[in-house]
């Protein structure tokens, strides 16, 4: 399990610069994945992930544990994403080519299933991309990052009830949009553990 994030932060602040490296190893994939889901670009995800950790490296000396380290990291990443989205000045879009190299779901899946999964993956991504920013962030943090409600409240700096409202509205919109395309989650489907 290794040292807690907070212990590594304390070690870094005490002069053990290598402790930061462990934090990078621990969180890089998650952060990069979250950024990818917001921006839909592999290159930008890697770029902003680097930037997130560079900012964290610069700021960690004055980090006082006002939030969990991971929440603080997500905050940095989200702020960078918002800046990037604003600079794009257009709504987010999903490149079909980019979505094309989505990892195959199962080893045992048939070619047809693979194509169908890929198509569904793309449609879900597009539906989430079309959500208002606040709802999209709530959905990504909850559904794909597996953060708890109190953690998301910390990251977004809003009350837990607000997080739940945004999430519920987002889920509601998604359901409608996907249903319009004939995609209906089977109601008795077991939900895979996040």
């Amino acid at each position: 399990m290794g040292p807690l994030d907070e212990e590594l932060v304390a070690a870094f602040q005490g002069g053990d610069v290598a402790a930061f490296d462990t934090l990078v190893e621990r969180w890089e994939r998650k952060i990069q994945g979250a950024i990818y889901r917001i921006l839909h670009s592999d290159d930008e995800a890697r770029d902003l992930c680097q930037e997130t950790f560079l900012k964290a490296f610069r700021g960690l000396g004055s980090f006082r544990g006002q939030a969990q380290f991971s929440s603080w990291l997500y905050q940095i990443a989200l702020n960078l994403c918002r800046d990037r989205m604003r600079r794009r000045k257009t709504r987010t879009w999903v490149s079909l080519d980019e979505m094309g190299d989505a990892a195959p779901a199962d080893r045992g899946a048939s070619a047809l299933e693979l194509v169908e999964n890929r198509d569904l993956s793309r449609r879900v991504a597009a539906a989430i991309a079309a959500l208002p920013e606040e709802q999209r962030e709530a959905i990504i943090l909850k559904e794909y990052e597996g953060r708890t409600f109190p953690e998301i409240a910390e990251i977004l700096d809003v009350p837990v009830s607000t997080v739940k409202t945004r999430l519920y509205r987002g889920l509601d919109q998604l359901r409608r949009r996907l249903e319009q395309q004939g995609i209906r989650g089977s109601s008795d489907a077991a939900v895979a553990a996040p």
Partner: protein
Amino acid sequence: MECESVREQMLDVLYGEADADSTARFERHLSVCSGCQEELANLRGLRFTLQAWTLPRQRRSVRRFAPPRYFWAAAAAALVILALGGALALAGFEMRFTRGPVVVRLGGAARGTTVAPRASDELSTVASQNAVRTAATNGLQDEVLLQRVSEMIRQSEERQQLTVRANLTGFEQRTARQRRYDLARIGAGLSYLDGRTGQHMARTTELMGYVLQASNRREP
């Protein structure tokens, strides 16, 4: 009305975050409300659908950000420089970005010693001979970053000079620590730049080596 009031509990249950009390409360409502039963089932189905969005195979950004041994090499070099002496000739340490190569050199700002300029000259010669050539593709962003790095160096230097003037041991210890941190940040900035422009990290270490070399000569 009642349905609205248990919505938060429904989300807690849906994501496995409900405590015993709210689970019990929600289940009492669920047993008499077919609407909420259907809603919960729908949300479960939706969650299942959402899992279909998979990430592309991730290429780790750390490869460009800096693999550990490289990333910290630059910071370590900075620490060595610090160990070589408090009044290190980082005065006027300057980084320039001119659309093409990044040039790091010592000297420029006035510093009242006779030795420092010599060391500065040496370094600037070495640095310009071995100017790190970077692709200008990320020009603007790199320029901003360079400005930030230069600013960090300047601030660090200001603190250092303040120490020299004040000559207070306690203050010196505190600034030394801050300076160590500053230098590590500078190292990180350099390696970040390097990563962005696709250079080998060895270049950064090399660069720090020049600084080291020059400061070595200055304070034998």
